[in-house]
């Protein structure tokens, strides 16, 4: 890792970005600063801190059963981490459910380590001054699929069902603003303010978007998972709060992940 100074600069930048709505010129200046920051980092990505913490957590004996997660089957067999992110979400015989990475980690924390489901899901996302195991584990597992193509099967009846449900959720309009995912992510070359919006119904955009999550968010100084991404989209959609690892979140992830098949994983990425 580079000296802490760059991280501190990023945090200062983040504070500026978060405050209110800056004027246009201020904002484009901020975007330029992020570009500079990214260039200064080169191949380094602050997400590496999460990845290495995640690897330690994967191997650490934790929970009432004092066991590691090393025997966890993420979809390619017990203990196989390399490439696992590319086949998720997937139907698992042992749980009888379609699971994405986050919900699968919860299952393994329960079955292998003896945590209760409530304990395993308690702190799904980090925040200021709070680093959580889930973010680190997600960063570690996703990073082990870098350079590999998304390859979600989606052929088991439960997987087909999840995909179809996810598709309907993507187009489900509701709330005081009538918004659906599709409102912002259903057409080519659109922006909110200056932020480009991927058209998630189009293969190339769906691939580019999905393969760069989880991501280190410079404006937040955190690695954010796909579960976090969906949670925050629904907040802005004016829906109630999407529950972590809920059936709707997994179904929607199935829709997005399968649409990204063939895209090459490059996560955790660095994003604004």
């Amino acid at each position: 890792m580079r000296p802490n100074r760059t991280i501190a600069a990023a945090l200062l930048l983040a504070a500026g970005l978060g405050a209110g709505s800056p004027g246009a010129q201020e904002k484009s200046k901020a975007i330029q600063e992020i570009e500079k920051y990214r260039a200064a980092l080169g191949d380094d990505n602050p997400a590496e801190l999460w990845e290495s913490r995640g690897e330690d957590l994967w191997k650490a004996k934790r929970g009432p059963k004092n066991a590691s997660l090393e025997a966890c089957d993420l979809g390619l067999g017990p203990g196989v981490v390399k490439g696992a992110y590319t086949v998720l979400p997937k139907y698992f015989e042992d749980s009888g459910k379609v699971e994405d990475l986050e919900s699968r980690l919860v299952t393994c924390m329960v079955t292998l380590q003896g945590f209760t489901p409530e304990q395993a899901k308690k702190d799904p996302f980090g925040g200021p001054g709070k680093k959580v195991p889930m973010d680190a584990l997600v960063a570690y597992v996703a990073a082990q699929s870098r350079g590999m193509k998304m390859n979600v099967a989606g052929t088991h009846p439960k997987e087909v069902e999840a995909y179809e449900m996810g598709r309907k959720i993507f187009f489900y309009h509701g709330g005081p603003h009538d918004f659906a995912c599709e409102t912002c992510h259903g057409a080519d070359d659109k922006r909110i303010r200056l932020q480009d919006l991927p058209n998630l119904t189009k293969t190339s955009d769906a691939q580019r978007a999905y393969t760069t999550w989880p991501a280190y968010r410079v404006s937040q100084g955190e690695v954010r998972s796909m579960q976090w991404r969906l949670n925050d989209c629904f907040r802005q959609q004016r829906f109630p709060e999407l529950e972590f690892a809920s059936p709707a979140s997994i179904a929607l992830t199935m829709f997005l992940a399968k649409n990204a098949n063939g895209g090459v994983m490059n996560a955790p990425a660095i994003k604004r």
Partner: protein
Amino acid sequence: MKKKIIVASALLGAAVGCSHMASYAPVEPTNDQVKAVLKGSFREVGQAKLDRIDQDDVQRICSAASAGKALAKEDAERIEKSQLAGIKYPADGYMGDWKAGEKIAQQGTGKQYSDDPAQPAGGNCYACHELTKEEIAFGTIGPSLRNFGKVRGFTPEVQKYAYGKIYNSEAYSACSNMPRFGHMGILTEKQIKDVVALLMDPQSPVNK
């Protein structure tokens, strides 16, 4: 474009499925099934209650239309007619203060569970529309509204149209992406008038 890809991926899914399982075809879930899954997957926080998942006719029809079922002409006409009939016009003219309107157009908060419900909501017009020359951080989901009044004429008829369009966009264009700011209680009558002035006052920077 959108429809073609989804149909293609569904066909692909079915084809791949066939090689593994003899006769499994994807079945589209009903709206009630989708609603049940959503109700079991969200929790109420602050002002955002679970009833936000309940859809009115417009949301239900437009969800089906965006998911690939073409919007029937009768449905579009029915939506526009019913929504137009519900617009409540102000008794004392359509124009407010364009300076207040500009603030409303800039403000992106309101109605999110993270927002204070005691504070007025914004219109967040710039998220999707170009308005003044000065603000270059505008989105492109909606059309440019530069010179809105200058182009259409500074007439009471256009003022009334602008008020109605902001109050309920579905009255003029079924399944529009634009929120129904008056109909859904996002903006007050006074706030809508201020935004109308932003679009229609000859002194507003929108028309400069």
